[in-house]
């Protein structure tokens, strides 16, 4: 009953006209960035972060969260109609969604992805309501060693799931941790790796790194070759699936929602992996697995539900533990901190309006998205038809503005450009950006927890293994990292990635 009272309070906050407007703007921008290849939710959050300085904290978090889950809806449109995922989480939707479109069922594919996403969003919001507060209470038992070990576990999962070699992913983690050390030391106040630069004194900004790695590098990759994009030229009609398609979609939507939620709450898992797991599971459960890839609605319904569920689930560790699971959630936390709100186990008690207002807004946002997406699909298709040379110049301009307005310092544009070049080279030489970004996000928190743990221990690293929760996290992290040796050349991971 107490939960219902809190939820009621949340709705009273989220339904205030100002918050409704920000929720609408958030899901609209989210859908737009999801539709546009090359601009992810992280880049959009980075661009809008400085703008939210003048917006009340509850409205800020509602706006920014709207972008993250709105992008999941938008990403499916490009996957189905263009065979280009607008978002990494929509990659798997291309497999069957595009084939459905070619068979004249584009409307049904778009419809089931929007309805599945709505259903998944609804389920996960309720799971979030019941899971986040107890988790926050449990996290009150955490000291610095537990936090440090949990972050090590998150990074290990990210490394395990990264594309290519584990060594490359671990190198990226170390690189991220080192970049995170640039600036003033949090405990001693000593400047590190700044070389008399005033700009570097505050550290390397996450906004500039994210915009560079994801926005600028994507443009550089696209312009190095002539860019051709074929848009499936058909009228999208009949957005509601037929009776048979409904019947086949119910199971995948339910399973996808649960997979998305339970994988999404694990730090480092990201919203991409649950979509692959859901696809593989649906294929295994299907009576005709050989038809997957030819336009099976289960291959759209499951993964689309999973990515939306995961995009809500990542808020569990973010809000209840104060630990971001990736760049988007790190920027959400950053926005909270700018407004003087301390993320972590005490957030629910100290700022109930933010927590419960956000939860209620998720539900309202999901309704807005389903109302917004189905009738506006024609508009999104038109946006996709905008020639890429107009699009990329605009993307680059937004990248420049986004990195500049954080501190009004033009050196930030140079930092963003540097990371754009680094990101471009990383893509060329098969290094993934996600472990780097997560390490950069967690680095300063990890270092602080590490230093405090060592001070508490009065000598030695034993403290990390003497405390049961911390030891459990570290053992899990070790098992994850050495498991490829026993699983045989990362068979499981490759299987998940190939969706086979």
């Amino acid at each position, binding site marked *: 009953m107490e939960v219902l009272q809190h939820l009621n309070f949340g709705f009273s906050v989220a339904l205030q006209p100002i918050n409704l407007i920000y929720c609408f703007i958030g899901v609209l921008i989210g859908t737009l960035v999801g539709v546009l290849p090359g601009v992810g939710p992280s880049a959009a959050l980075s661009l809008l972060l400085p*703008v939210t300085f003048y917006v009340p904290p509850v409205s800020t978090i509602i706006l920014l969260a709207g972008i993250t889950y709105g992008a999941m809806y938008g990403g499916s449109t490009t996957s189905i109609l263009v065979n280009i995922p607008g978002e990494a989480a929509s990659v798997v939707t291309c497999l069957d969604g595009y084939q459905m479109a070619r068979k004249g069922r584009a409307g049904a594919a778009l419809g089931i992805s929007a309805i599945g996403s709505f259903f998944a969003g609804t389920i996960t919001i309720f799971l979030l309501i019941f899971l986040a507060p107890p988790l926050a209470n449990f996290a009150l038992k955490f000291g610095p060693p537990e936090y440090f070990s949990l972050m090590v576990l998150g990074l290990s999962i990210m490394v395990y799931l990264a594309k290519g*070699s584990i060594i490359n992913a671990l190198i990226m983690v*170390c690189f991220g941790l080192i970049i995170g050390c640039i600036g003033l030391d949090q405990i001693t106040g000593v400047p590190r790796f700044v070389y008399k630069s005033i700009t570097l004194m505050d550290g390397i900004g996450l906004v500039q790194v994210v915009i560079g790695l994801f926005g600028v590098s994507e443009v550089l990759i696209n312009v190095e070759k002539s860019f051709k994009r074929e848009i499936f030229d058909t009228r999208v009609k009949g957005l509601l699936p037929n009776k048979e398609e409904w019947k086949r979609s119910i199971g995948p939507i339910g399973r996808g929602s649960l997979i998305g939620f339970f994988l999404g709450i694990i730090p480092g898992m990201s919203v991409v992996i649950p979509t692959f797991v859901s696809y593989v599971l649906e294929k295994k459960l299907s009576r005709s697995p050989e038809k997957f890839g030819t336009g099976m609605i289960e291959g759209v319904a499951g993964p689309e539900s999973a990515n939306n569920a995961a995009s809500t689930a990542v808020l569990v560790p973010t809000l209840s533990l104060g630990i971001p699971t990736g760049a988007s959630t790190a920027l959400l936390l950053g926005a909270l901190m700018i407004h003087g709100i301390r993320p972590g186990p005490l957030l629910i008690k100290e700022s109930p309006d933010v927590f419960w207002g956000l939860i209620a807004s998720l539900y309202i946002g999901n309704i807005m998205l389903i109302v917004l997406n189905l009738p506006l699909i024609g508009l999104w298709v038109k946006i996709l038809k905008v020639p890429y040379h107009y699009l990329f110049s605009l993307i680059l301009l937004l990248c420049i503005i986004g990195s500049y*307005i954080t501190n009004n310092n033009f050196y930030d*544009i140079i930092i963003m450009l540097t990371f754009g070049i680094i990101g471009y080279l990383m893509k060329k*030489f098969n290094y993934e950006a996600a472990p780097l970004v997560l390490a950069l996000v967690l680095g300063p928190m990890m270092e602080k927890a590490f230093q405090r743990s060592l*001070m508490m221990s009065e000598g030695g690293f034993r403290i990390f293994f003497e405390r049961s929760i911390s030891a459990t996290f570290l053992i899990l992290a070790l098992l994850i990292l050495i498991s490829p040796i026993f699983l045989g050349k990362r068979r499981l991971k490759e299987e998940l990635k190939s969706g086979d």
Partner: protein
Amino acid sequence: MKRIIIYCNIFWLLFAILTCIESYRLKLGEINHPGPGFFPFGAGLVMIILSLMGLFITITKKEEFREVSSEEKIRWWNIIIIIGAISGYAFSLDRVGFLINTFLFITLLLKVIEPQSWKKSIIGGVITAIAANFVFNVVFRVQIPSGILGF
């Protein structure tokens, strides 16, 4: 491809060694009272081990690394122009200002990367500059330098 992987690992090895040297200069402190260089030194040390492992695996691997062949030539010129344009934008922003900079930036990219006619490029530059100025300076009231135009 094998040679490129080796070069990458050598780069990371040198970067990690440099990090360790710089961290050592910052002072490592003691185990129960870590100094400012302790954490980056540890990260650098792990990076040295990883890059050496990467080098060892690449050098000793017998199987042939697949050469990545590309049918289309890479347009390096486009990349260099974009890097130059962004750098120019950054360094001239305070003096020249947002409006003129944005116009020049967009016109240049439209004219050079996927060449458009002068008319299209200039119209694109003007519209984008005015729209961006309206959105960021007027609607969002973000303080971007107005430069020589003064507005």
